[in-house]
């Protein structure tokens, strides 16, 4: 009489990768594994797609050789998460990840319009739990950049972790990735 005997299936990352290999998903279905739950992303509009491209361009230029900037590609985040952040910056070259998705991004970026709350709570908690040191939300609702750093445990957060530091940057200001503090990027380059 202690628990309900029926619960939503919880997938491990390895099970999920096996599903992908088996071709279990519909073509074009953008799936992410977040904390054991399989989630589908709804198609996004033009402003969103443009912003993702702008961020990709800016980060590629800022990071240069020795880093790979990946757009909407899987990250082997932890044992029950394989998200596809809008942009991920990972060490090394593209070919380094032929046999396995990158597991240790130095920067993750989400472009948010209707997904803003989810990106701030659910995803931020998951990324903080995985020890991602630098997480940015390109907030298209308020036209600002939100920078999240300093992951720390917090039992009230959805996945038990959150970011301790949140900075809001506006057009006219600059941002520097934590991994490359001397490479500044104008916030205006990341916003529409």
């Amino acid at each position, binding site marked *: *009489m*202690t*628990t*309900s*005997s*029926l*619960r*939503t*299936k*919880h997938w491990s990352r390895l*099970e999920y990768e*096996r*599903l992908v290999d*088996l*071709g*279990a998903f*519909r073509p074009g279905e953008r*799936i*992410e594994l977040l904390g054991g*739950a*399989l*989630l*589908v*992303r*709804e198609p*996004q509009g033009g402003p969103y797609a443009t912003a993702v491209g702008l961020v990709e361009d800016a980060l590629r230029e800022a990071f240069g050789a020795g880093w790979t900037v990946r757009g909407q590609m899987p990250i082997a985040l932890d044992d029950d998460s394989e998200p596809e952040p809008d942009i991920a910056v990972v060490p090394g070259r593209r070919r380094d990840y032929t046999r396995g998705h990158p597991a240790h991004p130095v920067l993750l970026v989400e472009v948010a*319009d*209707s*997904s803003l*709350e*989810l990106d701030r709570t659910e995803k931020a908690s998951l990324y903080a739990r995985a020890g991602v040191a630098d997480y940015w939300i390109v907030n298209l*609702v308020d036209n600002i950049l939100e920078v999240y750093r300093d992951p720390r445990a917090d039992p009230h957060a959805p996945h038990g972790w959150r970011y301790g530091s949140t900075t809001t940057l506006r057009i006219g200001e600059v941002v520097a990735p934590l991994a490359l503090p001397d490479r500044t990027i104008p916030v205006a380059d990341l916003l529409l």
Partner: protein
Amino acid sequence: MTRATLRAKRWTRLEYERLIDLGAFRSGDQVELLGGNLMVCEPQGTPHMTGIRMAEEVLRRVFATGWEVRTQAPVALDDESEPEPDVVVAPGSFRDYRHAHPARPVLLVEVAEASLESDREHKGSVYARAQVPEYWIINLVDNVLEVYRDPIVDSTAPFGWRYGSISRLGAGDFVGPMAAGQVRVAVADLLPSQLP
């Protein structure tokens, strides 16, 4: 700006059956598809198993020739549901279901202990939506048989339908399965607590 951009993955029954064929589930992970959601059933104890066996014995006797009685077997309920009820009564024989699971059961039975709430709320709503005419819960918590009939629309139910008629029958009562004509079954024969 109108809605969340991330939603839980919903599976169709055909996708789910393909997952099974692909061997996507580890043995031991007992899964069911309910309204597009992939659910895992926790392992059950001996009273549950006893309840299933009692219902099976009774229903095999009542539904003899011309009926298929199977236990914990998949039902192709609708486009996004493939549950595995504890006992299924379907027309025909096992030969009729060589190539596809039964889709039109006349009676489904769940034996409920820890699962009582989800059997009443979630499964009851999914079964009512699929027009299963009769649904029994052998309620091990209160030692009663709950008989659900008359599926009706209800927008507040998890899947938009529920059963309009609910009877709670005790060990001294009798129940007549709708599809079995005049036959009456002693409820005591379905309750493990009534075993000598």
